[in-house]
């Protein structure tokens, strides 16, 4: 079983340590006009909810959604700052750097408080330092204003001084030590960061061949550590550093042949300390060098009784035999060398076997990952909380590159889980789309029935006929056609009168009525002619209104018809599903390739370590065999001489 995770990245647990504490601080309410007490944007509130739980992936996704849908209102630069912080905590240091540079750079015009900007630069610089990118680490750490940082957070300020001093030590400009001295001057002598600086500068001095400076620095460090017991730092950390300093100083003494000084330094180390075994071995070396082999042998015998799984302890079998030889006990030294050779041979064989069987599965079996209910725990920089099952792995596990490679492998597996989980959703997406289409067809059928019931064609025909009649009446100037209802009623009455008069004899008895009728008819005709313009205008107005209504009616019907016929929305969704599916598949392939690379890189690191260890063992094996042969010859010669003497 390789390094597998059961959860997709959205549920990745992240411990709330320094970086996230800072992130929380910047996202929570501040005395700053650009950051209101409450979320003014629901999406931003949601982002904060995910982000305060350490769900960096979900929060980053929601930030991307917000950007796609018009951005976040009312929070100024804070969403971008939160995004940069989330990227840092999710191991996207390069992206985070771009975000911060754009947001906090001198030309950015950011409204963020200076101390927030300061701390952003600090964390960014620290992440680059841990990644081994010293140029970018320096670039970002130099942007920090030390005074402001010291006032806002003195712990961060101390660490900032340490990081800058380390970078100064490692830079090519290092030589006059002026910058280093001035930085060291910013810290108290007893400050743990100052002590680490002393230790590291001693190691640097030793590596450049300046043993005197290295010795002086280590002696000063040990003196400070011995005197400062009432410190704020955890005791174990100071004790660890003290042990490390003593071992290094003893190493320097041994190198210079100052065995008495080495014995004295090592003798001050506790027998139950972290470095007790290593001190014991050095003690044996010093004792042997000082001409006290029995002491050396006692120390080595003690070490021999322990498991020889730590790489440096592989020296013990050879050293034990060597001391026996030095004590002029060849009868004991010969079998000791034989045992040493057998041990090295077996160990080389064992390493051969380990190398040939080396796989991700075997490697992971050697590591003990700390987990909670939601998966493997990580620190605030995304590195996994892991301990070696086999302490032989401790050396490689302690290296930053291995830690980062392991974290990245884990991230890649998480991304692979994400891809698998999302791929399984596409079937559901298609079902959703199909269901939507079915519902749409049902609604279309219902609408069609409703439209049919409106008898639109009949209305259209009536409208058309009416228009024709009006047009004809207009062309014929038919004033009667445009009469009002009242006029039509009068006309009908006049017609009735005319009809009645027609049925009566045309004589003096009806003459008066006929005259009255004639005058009424004449008046009526004059009235109709006089009202023609008004009546025609009123009819045309009504017609225009009817035209508008009919046009609106037709437009609406047309829109409904277009909507019913238009499958563009459905097609667009279908296209998006297909595109996303293709992209997901491509991304899955890229992740597989990256996983292969990461796996290969990780195993190569372990293999390189195993090869180096094998080479070392081969050296000891060869030396043991040579010593065996030499001693066998010596003993044989001695026995021959004794035989001759006896004769």
């Amino acid at each position, binding site marked *: 079983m390789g390094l597998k995770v059961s959860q997709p990245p959205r549920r990745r647990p992240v411990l709330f340590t320094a970086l996230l504490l800072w992130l*929380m601080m910047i996202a929570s309410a501040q005395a700053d006009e650009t950051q209101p007490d*409450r979320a003014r944007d*629901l999406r931003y*509130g*949601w982002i*904060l*909810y995910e*982000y305060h*739980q350490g769900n960096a992936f979900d929060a980053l*996704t929601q930030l*991307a*959604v917000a950007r*796609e849908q018009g951005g976040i209102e009312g929070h100024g630069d804070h969403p971008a700052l939160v995004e940069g912080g989330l990227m840092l905590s*999710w191991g*996207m240091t*390069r*992206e985070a750097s771009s975000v911060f540079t754009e947001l906090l750079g001198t030309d950015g015009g950011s409204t963020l408080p200076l101390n927030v900007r300061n701390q952003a630069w600090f964390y960014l610089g620290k992440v680059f330092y841990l990644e081994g*990118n010293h140029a970018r680490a320096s670039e970002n750490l130099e942007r920090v204003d030390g005074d402001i940082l010291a006032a806002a957070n003195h712990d961060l300020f101390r660490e900032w001084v340490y990081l800058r001093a*380390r970078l100064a030590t490692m830079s090519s400009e290092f030589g006059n030590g002026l910058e280093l001295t001035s930085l060291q001057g910013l810290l108290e002598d007893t400050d743990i960061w100052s002590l680490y600086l002393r*230790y*590291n500068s001693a*190691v*640097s001095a030793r590596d450049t061949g300046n043993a005197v400076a290295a010795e002086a620095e280590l002696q000063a460090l040990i003196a400070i550590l011995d005197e400062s017991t009432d410190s704020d730092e955890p005791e174990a950390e100071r004790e660890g550093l003290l042990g490390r300093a003593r071992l*290094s100083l*003893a*190493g*320097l003494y*041994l*190198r210079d042949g100052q065995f008495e000084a080495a014995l004295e330094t090592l003798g001050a180390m506790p027998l139950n300390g972290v470095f007790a075994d*290593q001190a014991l*071995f*050095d003690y044996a*070396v010093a004792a042997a060098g000082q001409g006290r082999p029995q002491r050396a042998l006692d120390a080595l015998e003690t070490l021999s009784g322990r498991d020889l799984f730590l790489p*440096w302890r592989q020296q013990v079998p050879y050293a034990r035999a060597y001391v026996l030889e030095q004590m002029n006990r060849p009868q004991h030294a010969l079998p000791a060398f034989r045992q040493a050779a057998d041990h090295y041979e077996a160990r080389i064989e064992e390493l051969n076997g380990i190398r040939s069987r080396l796989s991700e599965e075997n490697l992971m079996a050697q590591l003990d990952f700390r987990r909670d209910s939601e998966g493997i725990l990580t620190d605030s920089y995304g590195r996994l909380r892991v301990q070696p099952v086999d302490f032989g792995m401790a050396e490689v596990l302690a*290296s*930053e*590159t291995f830690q*980062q*490679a392991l974290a*990245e492998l884990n*991230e*890649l597996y998480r*991304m692979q889980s*994400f891809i698998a989980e*999302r791929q399984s*959703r596409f079937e559901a*997406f298609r079902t959703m789309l199909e269901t*939507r289409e079915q519902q749409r067809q049902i609604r279309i059928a219902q609408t069609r029935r409703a439209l049919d019931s409106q008898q639109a064609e009949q209305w259209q025909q009536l409208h058309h006929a009416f228009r024709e009649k009006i047009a004809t009446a207009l062309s014929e100037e038919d004033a009667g056609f445009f009469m009002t209802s009242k006029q039509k009623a009068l006309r009908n009455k006049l017609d009735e009168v005319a009809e009645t008069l027609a049925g009566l004899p045309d004589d003096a008895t009806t003459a008066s009525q006929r005259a009255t009728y004639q005058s009424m008819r004449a008046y009526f005709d004059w009235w109709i002619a006089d009202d023609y313009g008004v009546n025609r205008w009123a009819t045309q107005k009504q017609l225009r209104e009817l035209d508008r209504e009919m046009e609106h009616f037709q437009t609406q019907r047309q829109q409904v018809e277009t909507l019913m016929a238009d499958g563009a929305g459905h097609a667009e*969704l279908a296209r*998006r599903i297909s595109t996303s599916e293709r*992209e*997901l598949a491509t*991304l899955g392939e*890229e992740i597989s390739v*990256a996983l292969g*690379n990461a796996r290969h890189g990780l195993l190569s*690191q372990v293999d390189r370590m195993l090869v180096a260890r094998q080479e070392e063992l081969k*050296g000891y094996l060869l*030396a043991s065999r*040579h010593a065996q042969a030499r001693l066998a010859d010596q003993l044989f010669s001695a026995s021959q001489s004794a035989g001759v003497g006896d004769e």
Partner: protein
Amino acid sequence: MATCLIIRFPMLLSALLLGFTAPVFAQTNTEGESNHTAVAEQVEALKKKVIRLNRDLFILEEDLLFPANTQVAVFLSVDTGKFLKLDAVKLKVNDDIVASHLYTERQVTALERGGMQRLYVGNLKTGPHQITAFVEGIGPDQRPYKQAASLEFEKDTGTAALEVRVQDRSSNYQPSVSIVEWE
């Protein structure tokens, strides 16, 4: 060779010892580092792609399941949380329970720090609707506390967003629950 090793024995051991006590955080394997940088850059580029794709899928899923003209989203916020330690919430829309949630310590902390939980997202037709939230937790004097809030609202053709707001009321040292409609 053996003689040489014997002569160099103390020196060899010292060298090994010094190698073991290398500088804190020091890196020596440049080949491994450069390979690792390449992988790290690759992983970061992939992470960027994964976020972008997840964004697209999230929007696609919302467009499919909760179209804008019918979508209703209910958020929950906790203002200070001094008088109520949130434990659980139930949500009813038109007499149907549509969401219920039990809160972990981490979620409560996230809410108290200004986060807003999307408690529910669903679809509603245009027209009048009623929403009711039941909030449970530990209230003043460490006693179990329950409170409900209700709101009648008109759903139009746009997305509807509501907020269940749990606040401290300093006037009577009691928590208060209200539902607010976002424009």
